[in-house]
């Protein structure tokens, strides 16, 4: 068979052991698995083909791929990635290419060197998975994956005749376990350097809130139970109905779609001492820049910005869990005066549509004579007429969609109501805008933090009033007061509730025991975010300052040296303690002590040397007759009937010590 002849003349020793080949292929599957959702699906097929090919090579059925076949495969792969529809060379495209190359390596994996390459690539893929997801579940999975990959490496170094995959796994688990203390030290102390290059953004669209809202298109608002963020309040948390997490401000409307207006310059930073509600937010990755805060943020980290429409943004997209601290002042007055540009912007309606609503608004404003009165009248209309709150509203036309909702269908969710009110106000030149974000959330009883999920997404209205600035009004409260007071679950109709997934309803407290378990898992994830994911450069700087006083590279280096050394010593001590000789016999203990002392004196006992032979050898050196000692020692050690009481032990210890002193004296005497 051509496949088995070795062109490079590598011997048996350079081939991949069978044990390790199986583990290698398993570890490939294990490390590719979490990436499957992020890569092009056809790559999985390529991996399967390569895996089958390598198996056939192993069984001696097929040969290794010829050079031109491999070249074709590489070219085909690059073309395949190019045709897979990635807009730019994004993280997904890069990962796809990496996984593809990793799969193709399988076909030419011939000797040990190739296998080691595959192993190192496997570690790299483990790290890659964290670019997409950093949850505790992924971390636990990747830890196991690391064990499997390490086991493959252990298998590489085993003899052909000892095929023990399970034993390899145990060895690998032990190695990883021993590495944990050092990992901890490095995690705590290793400087978190700012990246030299940045990764292209994952192009996946995030669920939940987006920067464009078209309520008319949504026939069935999917209620994702995905986590939006967690928040921890410093003091007493506010009431559920006051938890309006402001995120986006929609100031433009056209063709039934609300959109964010052109960004304005950030507001100058607040300098005076903040008073108000302090809390910390752990925002899940959104791939966007917007952040969420309660009205109105007055104090926040310097790297964050507060835009002119009072929404907080991060300088770069949130790709991993982001931790930020905010103080909000509920009594703060937003925009005492409205600049002409701002006024134009917030009363703008690009098209002259929805004639019925415009007519209605003009009439209403004329009748009530005040903004507050008009809003109250609209609220009353919602309450008194047959408006209803539903997650599955009828689809609306693009043009005049608000007319259609307000006068005909009268069924909708928050965006429908907020949109209608904003449009009505703008049509009579009152500055108004729609604000999107989250409302409410659930408190986890285990840790006391607030959990906000995608189904808590909400939209409401802000109206600018003289002397009061931007004021929040929520028309949804008129149609479904329970939604605001007690959360979404209370506002749902039976029909809507039936459409929820089991998990979503369990999260809302309908699951009994399951709810409790989910809350427990949530508290675990929160702690993970708090201590591990949230341990960023800023948190590290605090820790380092507390530990070192002044943070200098030299001090960090010393701390890492000490910490690393201590952790390695800890592992070494644990191993030594586990392997300590177990001496059950008291005389053996005495004799071992003697042997150690003699070894220090330069006359160690050979490992195969029996006590009798050793004593005789030493006695010969010291020109002593130790026959009596030898016999007694041997009897005490090996005759179960000899009395090895305290006196006998003391006697033998004395004799051994005498022999040792004689030897020290003799050798010293000879040397001089």
């Amino acid at each position, binding site marked *: 068979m051509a496949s088995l002849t070795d062109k490079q003349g590598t011997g048996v020793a350079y081939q991949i052991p069978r044990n390790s080949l199986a583990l290698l292929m398993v570890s490939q599957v294990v490390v590719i698995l979490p990436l499957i959702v992020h890569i092009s699906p056809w790559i999985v097929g390529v991996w399967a083909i390569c895996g089958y090919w390598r198996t056939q090579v192993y069984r001696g059925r097929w040969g290794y791929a010829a050079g031109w076949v491999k070249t074709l495969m590489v070219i085909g792969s690059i073309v395949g990635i190019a045709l897979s529809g990635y807009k730019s060379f994004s993280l997904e495209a890069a990962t796809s290419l990496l996984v593809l190359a990793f799969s193709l390596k399988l076909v030419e994996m011939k000797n040990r060197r190739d296998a080691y390459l595959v192993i190192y690539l496997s570690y790299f893929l483990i790290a890659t998975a964290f670019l997409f997801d950093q949850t505790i579940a992924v971390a636990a999975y990747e830890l196991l994956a690391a064990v499997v990959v390490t086991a493959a490496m252990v298998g590489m170094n085993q*003899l052909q*005749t*000892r095929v023990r995959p399970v034993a390899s796994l145990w060895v690998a688990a032990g190695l990883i376990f021993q590495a944990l203390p050092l990992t901890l030290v490095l995690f705590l102390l290793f400087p978190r350097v700012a990246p030299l290059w940045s990764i292209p953004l994952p192009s996946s669209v995030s669920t939940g809130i987006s920067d464009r809202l078209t309520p008319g298109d949504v026939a069935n608002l999917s209620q994702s139970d995905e986590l939006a963020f967690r928040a921890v309040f410093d003091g007493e948390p506010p009431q559920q109905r006051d938890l309006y997490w402001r995120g986006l401000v929609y100031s433009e409307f056209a063709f039934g779609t609300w959109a964010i207006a052109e960004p304005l310059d950030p507001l100058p930073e607040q300098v005076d001492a903040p008073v108000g509600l302090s809390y910390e937010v752990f925002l899940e990755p959104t791939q966007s820049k917007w952040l969420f805060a309660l009205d109105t943020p007055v104090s926040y980290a310097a790297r964050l910005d507060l835009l002119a429409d009072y929404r907080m943004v991060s300088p770069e997209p949130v790709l991993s869990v982001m931790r930020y601290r905010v103080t909000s002042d509920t009594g703060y007055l937003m925009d005492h005066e409205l600049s002409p540009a701002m006024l134009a912007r917030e009363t703008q309606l690009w098209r002259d549509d929805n004639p019925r609503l415009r007519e209605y608004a003009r009439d209403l404003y004329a009748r009530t004579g005040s903004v507050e009165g008009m809003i109250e009248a609209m609220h009353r209309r919602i309450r008194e007429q047959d408006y209803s709150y539903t997650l599955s509203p009828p689809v609306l036309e693009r043009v005049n969609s608000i007319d259609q909702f307000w006068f005909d269908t009268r069924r909708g969710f928050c965006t429908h109501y907020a949109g209608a009110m904003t449009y009505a106000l703008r049509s009579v030149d009152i500055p108004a805008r729609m604000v999107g974000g989250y409302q409410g959330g659930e408190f986890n009883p285990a840790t006391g933090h607030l959990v906000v999920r995608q189904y808590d997404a909400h939209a409401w209205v802000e109206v600018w009033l003289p002397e009061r600035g931007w004021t929040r009004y929520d028309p949804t409260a008129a149609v479904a007061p329970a939604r605001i007071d007690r959360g979404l679950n209370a506002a749902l109709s039976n029909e809507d509730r039936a459409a929820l997934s089991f998990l979503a309803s369990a999260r809302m407290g309908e699951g009994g025991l399951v709810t409790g378990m989910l809350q427990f898992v949530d508290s675990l994830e929160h702690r993970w975010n708090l201590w591990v994911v949230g341990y960023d450069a800023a948190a590290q700087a605090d820790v380092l300052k507390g530990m070192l006083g002044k943070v200098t590279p030299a001090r960090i280096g010393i701390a890492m040296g000490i910490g690393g050394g201590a952790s390695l010593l800890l592992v070494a001590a644990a191993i030594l303690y586990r392997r300590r*000789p*177990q*001496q*059950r*016999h008291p*005389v*053996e203990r005495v*004799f*071992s002590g003697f*042997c150690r002392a003699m070894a220090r004196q330069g006359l160690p*006992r*050979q*490992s*195969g*040397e*029996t*006590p*009798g*032979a050793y004593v005789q050898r030493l006695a010969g050196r010291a020109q002593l007759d130790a026959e009596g000692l030898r016999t007694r020692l*041997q*009897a005490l*050690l*090996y*005759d*179960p*009937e000899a009395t090895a009481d305290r006196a006998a032990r003391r006697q033998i210890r004395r004799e051994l010590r005498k022999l040792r002193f004689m030897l020290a004296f003799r050798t010293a005497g000879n040397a001089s």
Partner: protein
Amino acid sequence: MTPNSTQTLTSLSSTTTPEALPGGKVHAREHIEALEAALNRVLLGKEQQVKLALACIFARGHLLIEDLPGMGKTLLSHALAQVLGLSYNRIQFTSDVLPSDIIGATIFDRDSNAFRFVEGPLFAQVVLADEINRATPKSQSALLEAMEERQVTSDGESRPLPEPFFVIATQNPSTQAGTFPLPESQLDRFLMRIELGYPEPAAERELLLSGDRREIVAELEPIIDLDQLRGLQGAVEAIKVSEPLVDYVQRLIAFTRQGNEFAFGLSPRGALALLQSAKAWALLHHRTHVVPEDVQAVLPSVVEHRLRESADFAGHGGGALAQRLLGSVDVVS
């Protein structure tokens, strides 16, 4: 077996404890020295091998002697049978020996007009299986089954072999032509494997001058009787073993099981064989307990044929392994 000898067997089962052997130690010492002297007179310059062979007999084990032809293998085994006062048969194995040639066969007796079992050469207290690895595996296994069960089955009828029953097998080095190497499972049934080796020049000179040793063997008188042999075997059982020594034996066994240079480790039977042989060695040196020196003395003979280097696919290169074992395993923990 005669009814008489079964009676001695039952009476002896109670005499295996040292208390039941008043003055047994003194007799044992005399017997051992006399046995060694007689055997050393036959086999010149092979004191160590003679001692090992005696230890093997006292430990109730079968003995495998491996060496080139003409080194005195047959002589040693015959002399052993003589001095111990045991009946002796020799089977020369060749490639065409059949199991019935060893065990015996049922033949038709014309006088009594009935079938009669004619006992084969296996029915003796000491059986010398000469050049065992020249026989086919089929015949080898007939013998090896007898060694383990101490009985043979022919035509559906089990027949006990004489008591005691020792097999002393000799084999030529497996590298020689026309040999069927014994499989590991059968090698394991031999308590010890010894090699005789070339004699020392002085011993060889004496041999050359004094002529054929076989005459001396024929003249050898039994030195001990069956009861005394059983007494010695009982004395081996009574040798005491201390905790540190068992620890040492366990470390030796563990080393063979964990070390990468060993294709496989020692079996529990191998471990028992090692301890049993060490006890017999202690008896030969007139001790009541085993010391590590005893273990080290018998270890090569006991383990070499049970071990194989993992890199050694063809033969049994256990010799270097035994030396490694002795050198690497610490006597004292």
